[in-house]
Every structure is written in structure tokens, then in C-alpha cells.
């Protein structure tokens, strides 16, 4: 991972020094190794804080909405999953493709520090990875963990590849993987309606309406959100009843339906650990099942499933009955 | 059972809505047993609709019907005159109390001249 970071640093310096770009968007060191934060570097010496390690899970494409409006070009490091969101933002004219210099950066999966801590390791200093083995160095010494167990949820089922790039920094190829990302969704669908209702009641009542999911989601980047627009009739700042907990997440999932690239950021940032990706994946599974395979963000133009139709789509009643287990 | 109840009972057994008949006469036009019948198929439907079941119950026609279902096949309004005739016949047989024809009685009287149709029709008529 260090070799990739070095190469990225080199490229960032070169791009800034040559003036080809006005800024580079990447990650900067946080307090610890496991909390790097997205950052914009305008000058070479700012780059001393630059970092790219196993904890850089954030999807940087959303920051490009503002960046592409600024003067001069912006370079950005995009992991494979981020590139789908980037394409989707270009398709929706939120990001001007010509203002962005995309550097496709290698990603072999990112770690979830909560999962490492859950295995009893604390005060992590460094991490070394040898394909499936992860050596975690901490004050208490060194422990070896199994990589698949500490991956971010979104990385567990990741089969994504870079969809767009102006240049790339890929030093190790990633093993092919065949995994059913809808397993969880199918498990839920297999439940009875009462069990499903109980499951989601239990999850959604944890929602504190902090809007972290909305603020991080590339597809959820309206100039003014419908929940902040009094003319919409559903404007609200807090969930002061169980209905509004459901309403917020149903409408958010519906708005991103057909546009959500399944980048998993919503679940990653949710402070209450609500598996929000299971909501979006349900829409994705239904769209694939009812209207044909569709992966948002594979291209940067054309219509989405909810803004297109065929003369003989399935009738809603059959869709629901067909689906209901 | 009052007369009204019997009328409704016959209507229910026939399983057909006699008011849908538009009096076109196609059923009678097609009925092979028309000549022997004292009350014709189209009359059955109209008289049942009007509730005049006494004549129907005493009629000879309920026994002449072959149950060949040509009238049901042809009716443009989806009415089933044969079912009405059969319903009246069932009522008469049930009113007699005994079950006219038992299955085991058939083999001895069967010979190769009897058309299959007649056998089925006889069984329908007398075994209730």
C-alpha cells in the first residue's frame, strides 16, 4: 500500500507544480491511522499531510460538485466504486467532466476500524497486509486478523472496476471475486411481512435524523433537499414520530432509486449503524429483476430505469405478488 | 318449499341468468328434439323467467331433451337453455323421491345400437 501512496504523492506534486491542476483532492492524515479525512491540496507543501492507507474508505466524487465549479482543473483520486458515482454526477450535469482530472487509484478493500476493535485490538498504530493476513501493530503488540472479517461492509461484496480514468495508479491486480451482493436482501425478503416490519422498526427507530447519509451520498446532492423545502409538504428537521422515520428513508431511497451506484457510503457513515445499503439494494435488485440488469454510473449519459419505460412493463400488482415471499 | 322458493331453486340449479335471454330463438332453431317437445327450449327460458314452472314440471319436453348442448353452444347471450331443462328435470326427479336409475342397472340393458349420447343423457336424466 505504501508504494501506491508514494506514487500518488509523486503524481500530485507533479500535477500541482506543473500548474496542470489548481488542486488535488485526496485524503489527509487524521489523529490516528484509522481516521484519514478527505482533503483538498492546493500547494505542494500542503501535501506533507497527504495519506492513502487501508482506512481511506470515503468516496471523493461528491466533493467534485463544488470543485468543478471553481477556477482551474481539479485532480482527484478515485477508487473503483467512486468512479460510478462520478459518472452519475457527470450524467446529471453536476460535475463538468472537462474540469476534472481523474486518477484511478488501486483499491484492494478498505478496513472498518469498528470491526478491528470488536476483535479486541485497540490503539492501532500500523497495519500490514499480506493477501488474506492482516498484521495489526498496536501499543499492546501485534495481532494477526483475517482480512475478510474486518473489511468495510461495502467492500465485502465489491466487484467494481474503474469506469473512468485519465490516468491510473494500479500496482497490484485484485483477485476476481464472485459474491451475491443481494444475499442480505434475499434473507429479508424470505421473512414474513411481520418479521420484516419488526426488523425495520428496530433499525429505523435508531435513526436520529443526523442527515449523515444524505450529506455523504453522491446521488443525494440536491441544491435544496425536499425535506428542507416547506412547499413540498414533507419538510421536517427531526423524526418526531415513527412514521417520519419511515418516510425519510423511504423517500430518500426512492429518490436515489435507479441512480444509486451501491457505493455503500450511507451505511459506512451512519452513526447508528443502520444497514441503509439494504434499502437501496432492494431497489437495485427489483430494477434488475423487473426491468433488466442496470448498474448506475457505468456510463455518463443516457436515461435511468425510472426515467424510461417499455410498452409491456410488469403491472404493479404482479410485481408485488411475484416478489412477495 | 313454496313456489317462489322452488322457482329460485330451479334458477340456482340451472346456474344461468334467464333474464339475459333476448328471445332470438336460436336455441330452438338448432334443437334436434324440437319436434317432439311440447314446450320448446326458448319457451323454457322465458317461462322460468316469468315463474310459470307448473307447466314446465308437467311438460313432456324435459324427457325429450338429448342434452346435446347445441343450444348452449349457439346462444349469443350466454344463456344455457339445456341447463334450465335439466334443472326442471332434476326438480321433478327429486320430487318423486326415488333415484330412478342406478349405475349397476345399466350394463344389462346396454347393446351396441344405443348411441353413447343417449346413454349419457339417460344417466343424466334418471340418476339424481
Amino acid at each position, binding site marked *: 500500500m505504501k508504494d501506491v501512496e508514494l506514487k500518488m504523492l509523486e503524481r500530485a506534486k507533479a500535477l500541482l507544480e506543473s500548474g496542470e491542476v489548481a488542486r488535488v483532492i485526496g485524503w489527509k492524515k487524521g489523529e490516528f491511522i484509522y481516521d484519514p479525512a478527505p482533503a483538498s491540496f492546493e500547494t505542494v507543501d500542503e501535501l506533507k499531510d497527504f495519506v492513502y492507507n487501508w482506512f481511506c474508505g470515503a468516496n471523493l466524487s461528491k466533493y467534485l460538485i463544488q470543485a468543478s465549479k471553481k477556477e482551474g482543473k481539479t485532480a482527484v483520486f478515485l477508487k473503483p466504486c467512486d468512479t460510478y458515482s462520478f459518472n452519475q454526477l457527470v450524467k446529471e450535469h453536476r460535475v463538468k467532466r472537462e474540469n476534472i482530472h481523474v486518477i484511478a487509484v488501486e483499491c484492494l478493500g478498505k478496513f472498518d476500524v469498528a470491526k478491528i476493535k470488536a476483535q479486541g485490538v485497540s490503539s492501532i498504530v500500523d497495519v500490514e497486509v499480506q493477501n488474506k493476513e492482516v498484521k495489526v501493530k498496536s501499543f499492546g503488540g501485534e495481532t494477526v486478523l483475517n482480512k475478510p472479517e474486518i473489511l468495510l461492509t461495502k467492500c465485502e461484496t465489491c466487484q467494481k472496476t474503474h469506469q473512468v480514468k485519465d490516468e491510473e495508479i494500479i500496482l497490484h491486480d485484485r483477485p476476481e471475486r464472485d459474491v451475491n451482493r443481494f444475499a442480505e436482501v434475499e434473507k*429479508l*425478503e424470505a421473512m414474513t*411481512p*411481520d*418479521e*420484516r*416490519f*419488526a*426488523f*425495520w*422498526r428496530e433499525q429505523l427507530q435508531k435513526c436520529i435524523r443526523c442527515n449523515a447519509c444524505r450529506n455523504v451520498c453522491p446521488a443525494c446532492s440536491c441544491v435544496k433537499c*425536499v425535506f428542507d423545502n416547506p412547499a*413540498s*409538504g*414533507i419538510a421536517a428537521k427531526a423524526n418526531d*414520530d*415513527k*412514521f*417520519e422515520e*419511515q*418516510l425519510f428513508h*423511504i*423517500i430518500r*431511497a*426512492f429518490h436515489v*432509486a435507479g441512480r444509486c451506484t451501491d457505493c455503500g457510503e450511507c451505511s459506512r457513515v451512519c452513526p447508528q449503524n443502520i444497514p441503509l445499503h439494504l*434499502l437501496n439494494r*432492494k*431497489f437495485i435488485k*427489483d*430494477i434488475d429483476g*423487473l*426491468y433488466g440488469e442496470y448498474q448506475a454510473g457505468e456510463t455518463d449519459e443516457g436515461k435511468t*430505469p*425510472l*426515467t424510461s*419505460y*417499455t*410498452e409491456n*412493463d*410488469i*403491472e*404493479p*400488482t404482479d*410485481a*408485488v*405478488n411475484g*416478489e*412477495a415471499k | 318449499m313454496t313456489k317462489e322458493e322452488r322457482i329460485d331453486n330451479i334458477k340456482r340449479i340451472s346456474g344461468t341468468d334467464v333474464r339475459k335471454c333476448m328471445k332470438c330463438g336460436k336455441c330452438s332453431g338448432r334443437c334436434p328434439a324440437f319436434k317432439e317437445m311440447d314446450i320448446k327450449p326458448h319457451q323454457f327460458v322465458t317461462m322460468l323467467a316469468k315463474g310459470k314452472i307448473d307447466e314446465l314440471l308437467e311438460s313432456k319436453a324435459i324427457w325429450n331433451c338429448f342434452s346435446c348442448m347445441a343450444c348452449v353452444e349457439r346462444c349469443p347471450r350466454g344463456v344455457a337453455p339445456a341447463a334450465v331443462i335439466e334443472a326442471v328435470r332434476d326438480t321433478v326427479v327429486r320430487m318423486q323421491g326415488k333415484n330412478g336409475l342406478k349405475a349397476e342397472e345399466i350394463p344389462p340393458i346396454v347393446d351396441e345400437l344405443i348411441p353413447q349420447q343417449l346413454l349419457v343423457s339417460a344417466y343424466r336424466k334418471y340418476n339424481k
Partner: protein
Amino acid sequence: MQDVTTEKKEFTPNIVAFCCNWCSYAGADLAGSSRLSYPANVKIIRVPCSCRVNPTFVLKAFQQGADGVILCGCHPGDCHYVTGNYYTRRRMALLFNFLNYMGIEKERTRVEWVSAAEGQKFSAVMNDFVKTVTELGENKRLTDLRVKEGE
């Protein structure tokens, strides 16, 4: 405050029907002029096209105490706005599936295509929908309890 503990008032569901102005609203009018009755607790809101119905309206109806929401539109291919009902069909198929995924009974929501000449069908659909929702009982899973107890 309605006393819930005593013998429950025989449950009559509250149904909101969104009808498109060109076909199903005209179908409802024809059902009216042909005196084809359906339960009084079905109330119709006129929208220019079934594609005007936003999922937020459907959810708002449930929040305000509706027990069933039905959308009526023109038969696909006959839409006055050419493609309106094609989008409705996709949106509602996905929304209903999603509500069902969240445990909301799938019988509470329905889409029916009723043309201006189908008064008979409109009345039959409404009677059937009210019967289905009545058997299902009151909507307890997607509603704002304050609204029910409050006003």
C-alpha cells in the same frame, strides 16, 4: 377521545383514490351516472395524470389515517399524455415492492387502469379494494398515531 376499549366500532377503512382526469375520473363519473354504488369511504382526488402522483402523496395519505391508497389511470397506451402511465407503472411497482419489503401489507396499495368507458369496472374495483382492506384491518404500520388520536 374515542374509547377504544369498549366494543370496537365496526371497522370501515378510509380509502384515498387518486384518479387521472382523462380516464379514471371519467370512469368514476360514469359509475356515478350509471348509479353503480361503491362504499362511501372511498374518496377521490383528481390529478391531471396518474404520473402526477408523487410517492410522498401516497405516504402522506397513509400518515393522515388512510388504510388503503389506490391509483387509477388510463390503460397503458391510451394515456392522454402519451407516456404518463408508463412511468406510473414503474414507480408504483418499485414503491409497492419497497413498502412490502418494509413490512407494510402489500394489499394496502394498488394500481388499476380504468378507461372513461369502464364505469362498471371502476365500481367493481372500488368494491373489491374496500373488501380487501376491510379484511386486512386498520393501518397500524404506516401511520402517524398523533393524527389518529389527535383531531
